[in-house]
């Protein structure tokens, strides 16, 4: 940091930290006696901070409280039953949960390559002048309301993608079983499917994965990049040996966050799918479902048991997304702290 030419005198006053120049802004530990006002102030702030725990705790508590009726009514078959007939006490998440996960997985399969390509493009290939604009554009894509994605998917994408879906079903269906469509070759066989919902959800999680990955890619140490170039690497060689290994943790975390978001996505999915209640094996066929779409489409049913069943399903969704998101948070934080020690 300090070159020999610089006078060493200004730092003599703080012998403990000789490395930090005057413009290096390192906060010192400040100990001040707390006034009564301060104590009140800190108490209020602490309450605001802990309100996060309160809110999340209340969400869990009320979902359990309200969902317990339904769980008591059907017991463990809530996890094994595929149908959703609340009046007949015959309902469970064995269809909606895996079907929802399937939508999320399809979304990831489409979104991850595009998002990583875009992230690499923005951090490594795009002209420097365009970079800020591209980052803003990705942020804007994340800010577009999900209902607009749903409208776009339903009215713009679906009529145009049917030809491609039909092509996949007819030509790949025989070799890859889950691409088969067994309901006859008419237009409505190919609409409102798990695949189309997955494509729209993919668009919604692209910005999340892109912006997080771009952030970790752009933090790859400059010295190692130049080192790779100096050893005669091509740009891709540099990306493959420096940027990607450096960003691996962050990318995994970003993909997990995207998965969590994809699982919870409601409105776009609910607009596109036509709900069904059996576990899906053929992703191009009409009919799909997810927990969140189920809640959005069925909450109008007024009897208590139906609502209670939805609360129980919401509890499962809440627990799953919380698990995925907290795990993703840990992965990302670990990769960040690693980046701090890398140079």
């Amino acid at each position, binding site marked *: 940091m300090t070159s020999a030419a610089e006078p060493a005198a200004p730092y003599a006053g703080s012998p403990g930290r000789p490395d930090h120049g005057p413009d290096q802004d390192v906060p010192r530990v400040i100990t001040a006696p707390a006034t009564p006002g301060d104590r009140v102030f800190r108490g209020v*702030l602490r309450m605001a901070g802990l309100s996060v725990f309160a809110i999340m705790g209340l969400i869990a508590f009320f979902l359990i409280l309200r969902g317990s009726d339904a769980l008591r009514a059907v017991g463990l078959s809530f996890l094994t039953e595929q149908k959703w007939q609340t009046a007949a006490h015959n309902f469970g998440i064995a269809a909606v949960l895996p079907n929802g996960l399937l939508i999320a997985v399809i979304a990831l399969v489409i979104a991850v390559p595009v998002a990583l390509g875009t992230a690499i493009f923005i951090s490594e290939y795009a002209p420097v002048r365009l970079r800020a604009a591209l980052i803003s*554009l990705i942020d804007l894509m994340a*800010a577009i309301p*999900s209902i607009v994605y749903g409208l776009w998917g*339903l*009215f713009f994408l679906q009529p145009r993608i049917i*030809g491609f879906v039909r092509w996949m079903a007819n030509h790949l269906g025989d070799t890859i079983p889950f691409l088969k469509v067994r309901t006859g070759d008419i237009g409505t066989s190919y609409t409102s499917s798990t695949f189309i919902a997955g494509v729209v959800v993919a668009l919604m999680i692209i910005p999340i994965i892109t912006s997080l990955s771009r952030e970790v890619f752009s933090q790859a140490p400059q010295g190692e990049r130049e080192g790779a170039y100096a050893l005669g690497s091509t740009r*891709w060689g540099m990306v493959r040996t420096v940027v990607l290994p450096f960003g691996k943790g962050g990318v995994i975390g970003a993909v997990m966050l995207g998965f969590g978001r994809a699982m919870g996505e409601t409105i776009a999915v609910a607009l596109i799918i036509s709900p069904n209640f059996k576990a899906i094996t053929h992703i191009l066929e009409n009919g799909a479902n997810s927990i969140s779409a189920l809640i959005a489409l069925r909450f109008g049913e007024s009897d208590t048991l139906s609502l209670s069943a939805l609360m129980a399903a919401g509890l499962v969704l809440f627990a799953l*997304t919380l698990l995925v998101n907290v795990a993703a948070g840990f992965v990302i934080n670990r990769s960040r702290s690693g980046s701090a020690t890398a140079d």
Partner: protein
Amino acid sequence: MTTLDLPPVAAPGPAADPAPTQAAAPRPERKVRLGGITREDVFTVAGAAIGSLALNWMLYERVLPFSGAFGFLICWYLLFLAGYFALGRLQWHRLMVRDRLVGVVAWSSGLLVVALIVDQIGYVLSRGSEAAQHLNFFTQSMDHTGPLNPITDGGALNAVVGSLEQLGLATLFAVPLGIAAAVFMSEVGGRMARPVRTLVEAMTALPSIVAGLFVLGVVIITFGFEKSGFAASLALTVMMMPIVTRAAEVVIRLVPGTLREASYALGGSQWRTVWNVVLPTARPGLVTAVVLGMARGVGETSPVLLTSGFTSQFNGNPFSDHQVSLPLYIWNYVKQPYDGMIARGFAAALTLMIVVLILFVTARVLGGRRPGQLTRAQKRRIDRDARRLEKAAAGAVARPYALRPQEQQ
């Protein structure tokens, strides 16, 4: 790739030059341009694109029984990559071909994402302008408009007002709570700061339908209130608060520690320091945080869907009766099988997009400034104060027996 023309190190002239390296010194150092686009690069990309287009047209449209624009584009892209690889292999080394191929893939995924955003905005614009170009869309509600009425009748005034009121209430709840939590994490800290941060991050990704379900379960089922705009604003608060907190914490952390130290050195208490120094310094960033939270909140559909209740009537009171908002308006009308209703839904989507865009651009413009960086107006004010003080000081010197400005109070 590029040859460096190095300066002659040892001049071959008459020997015994005392410092041979000095011969190179007066020559200005020329920056070596690495990379850049050559004519071959352009021709290779263009050739691959045109060749694959022709081949794809023949195969896809004529030989193989495929159809659909979507499949055509995908097949064209794959053929293009193959063609580019083949063309590159003719002229370049294997490593370089791979490098160029990855470059092309990266460029195309970036372009794809840009095209998707432009397409989405353009599509909503074109479909939405059909109903939104009639002024009645913004001045009337759907009170007396049936599904078959023309789009020159009825509008989304009720939804716009509902959205603004619910967003306003939610902002009122979420902003103090969110900023206080952010200040807690960065200024008070302690053992609890880290778990709070983890939970806030998890809460950011809380499925919006769960927030709606929560408020439905608490406010409406447990406490027996009716569905209302107020209940919707509570659900929106749950969605907006973590966003505000996260964005606010980032900017509060950027406030220079020396400012805090200066405040403490002047005898300020912690609460005075935060209130008079930290928060004002971070103001532009905090406004950005709030606006980002609002942009997220205004477009949330599922919390509103479960908690506010739909009505076609105008309801300006968020505390009683059902109240419609823009996302809910869209959700209800685009599902109806009437062209006029779908057009209204798209016009509402256009309105919503414009609101989000305005909020987003506001956040960008404000967020461009770092904490503590002054606006032009602030700089002018400081200059004016400085001039006044100077004049006062000069006056004090001219009249040595008069009271100095500081002592006048």
